[in-house]
């Protein structure tokens, strides 16, 4: 099995890229000697807030570059790609689901889904994309009638599912979900996880599910605590 994600000797401190937080120079938020995820794995990545989760996600998606070390997605080193190529690479290979407010509120559901395929280099004709969007809606148990509704009219649970559809329409190798269920009640959460797993399985997508809620861990084959891979002394406080 080939590694979809491979991290080597990663270290990161905000000081080098932004002045946002008063973090002293010596204090790295992340220090990860080694971490990898194989194709087809469903990984539950958990850690309390402030454990460097968000930073790791920013790095995995190529929005932030490591201060040192190597982060490879599909054997491609983020650091070796230039800004635009990096954006295109992300567009082509990584799907992402936010904790909440995933959708552009003023676009309708269909446009929100199609936006997922907008920035890649896949030149699929539009009607084919629309077909696929409908298929995804079916798989996610969303009525097709929602397609032309503005995204802001949907319930939170529906919005999160549409976000999966948007992430998957470009058929990414890697799907990263950042606490996608935290805004959902239990019934919705279970339904959400069910369709997420089904679709990941069906599309042969590697899934990285990030959460601070360990009760969900039981549903995943592989569980990784961030604190166990992150050697940074006292990170992010």
């Amino acid at each position, binding site marked *: 099995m080939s590694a979809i994600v491979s991290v080597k000797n990663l270290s990161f401190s905000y000081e080098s*890229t*932004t002045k*946002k937080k008063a973090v002293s120079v010596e204090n790295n938020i992340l220090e990860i000697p080694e971490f990898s995820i194989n194709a087809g794995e469903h990984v539950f990545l958990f850690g309390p807030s402030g454990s460097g989760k*968000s930073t790791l*996600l*920013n790095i995995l*998606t190529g*929005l932030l570059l490591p201060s040192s070390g190597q982060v490879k997605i599909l054997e491609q080193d983020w650091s070796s790609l230039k*800004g*635009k190529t990096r*954006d*295109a690479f*992300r*567009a*082509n290979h*990584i799907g*992402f689901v*936010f*904790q*909440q*407010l*995933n*959708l*552009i*509120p*003023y*676009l309708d559901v269909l*446009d929100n889904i*199609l*936006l*997922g395929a*907008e*920035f*890649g280099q896949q030149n699929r004709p539009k009607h084919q994309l629309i077909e696929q969007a409908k298929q995804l809606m079916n798989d996610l148990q969303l009525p097709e009638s929602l397609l032309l509704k503005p995204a802001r009219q949907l319930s939170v649970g529906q919005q999160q599912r549409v976000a999966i559809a*948007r992430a998957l329409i470009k058929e990414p190798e890697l799907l990263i979900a*950042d606490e996608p269920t935290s805004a959902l009640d239990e019934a919705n959460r279970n339904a959400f996880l069910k369709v997420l797993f089904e679709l990941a399985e069906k599309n042969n997508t590697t899934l990285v599910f990030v959460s601070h809620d360990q009760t969900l861990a039981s549903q995943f084959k592989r569980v990784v605590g961030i604190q166990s891979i992150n050697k940074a002394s006292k990170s992010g406080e």
Partner: protein
Amino acid sequence: MFVKLAKQSLISRRTSVLLTVLAITISVFVLLSVEHIRHQAKQSFNRTVSGVDLIVGPRTSQINLLLSSVFRIGDSSNAISQSSVEDLASHPMVSWVVPIALGDSHKGHRVMATTADYFQYFKFGAKQPLTFKQGQVFKQHFDLVLGADIAEKYSYELGKEIVLSHGTGVTSFTHHEQTPFTVVGILNRTGTPVDQTLHVSFEGLHHMHEEPQNEERAHKEHNQEEHDYEDQDNHEGHAHHDKALDHEEHENHDEDHDHEEHAQEGGEAAVEHDHDHKVSAVFVGLKARFASLVMQKWANDYKGEALSAIMPGVALSQLWRMVGSVETVLQVISILVLITTLIGLSTMLLATMRERTKEIAILRVLGASPMFIFMLIELEVFVITFIGCIAGALLLWITLLAAEPLLASQLGLFIDTNPISETSLMVLAFVLVGSLIMGLIPAINAYRHSLQANLTAR
């Protein structure tokens, strides 16, 4: 999708967007109208008279004489006598003279008495002569030649009989009903005050005022004239505009009294025949251009009465400088208004950045480049400004259509109602470029947001 995003994003914030568009519309309207009027006024100014080397009239300011003789605005409070005109005409440097007399009106439009030479020598624009659309120059006493606008406005045709009124107010109480004039010619449009003028011969004017022979009528008319004066005094403030013609009238039906008075004022004895009438101004053509200065001095030194002579080109540019400086102030103000508006536009977009942080994060994680975000904001700026520009131009066009007759009749300004000219397109381009530059502020803000896009930002 790019365009759709911008469009939907604007629609979703329609209230603030509409207000911004409205602000831009107004500032574009102000900017364009100042520019348009300035351009048109200058053109209109400069094309009013041409081919005339000198205008000689009673002693007054350059601009006064120019306004009354060429623009037919205001009043010619004084007049010069026929003998001065004859002296002028006989000067060796003078090639032609065309005397004019103003003072009567028809429905508020000026009636100008002149000679048939006027149609030959008076030119406008780039030395274009006056041409007849229909008919010909007046031949009989009560013949009348119409300017294009008058003919069009009242649908007057050849053969139509028209009654002229005494004085220049719109509502005159004295109509020369006994002496209707017959339209014998209609001029082609010139875009100058000529279009608003009714032309008659001196003989016609003279006979018209001579007409009420019986004393009772004459008396009655006198009383009416007094009312007429009062009326104009109150409403328009030019009560004295045609004293000269008035005198002439008195002279003719009331000879005894008038001789003295006339003699006092005019400084010379009136000779009673058809050709003795006072003249408001004289258009003069010279044998050589350089003679202008000589003739100006001649007029200033003229012994018979106080004369002044102006060179139309010089007077026009002097007038233009007066008006022009006002327009420069207006221009500066309108540019300031525009800048304020553009700052408002930029502020509006900046204010939305907070709520758009999430949007930007979404687009970024989907693979949009920071440049895409930057362009998205600039596109919104462009769309808002573009709509504002179109709306502003439309508003101006409608306003011009409404204001054009008023400007022509009240100010003698002949403007083109089409606001789209090379200059106005330049102005619009300037506005668009300016807005894109101001749009850089929110766009760069968004760009930087997107570089630092934090996936957990909310």
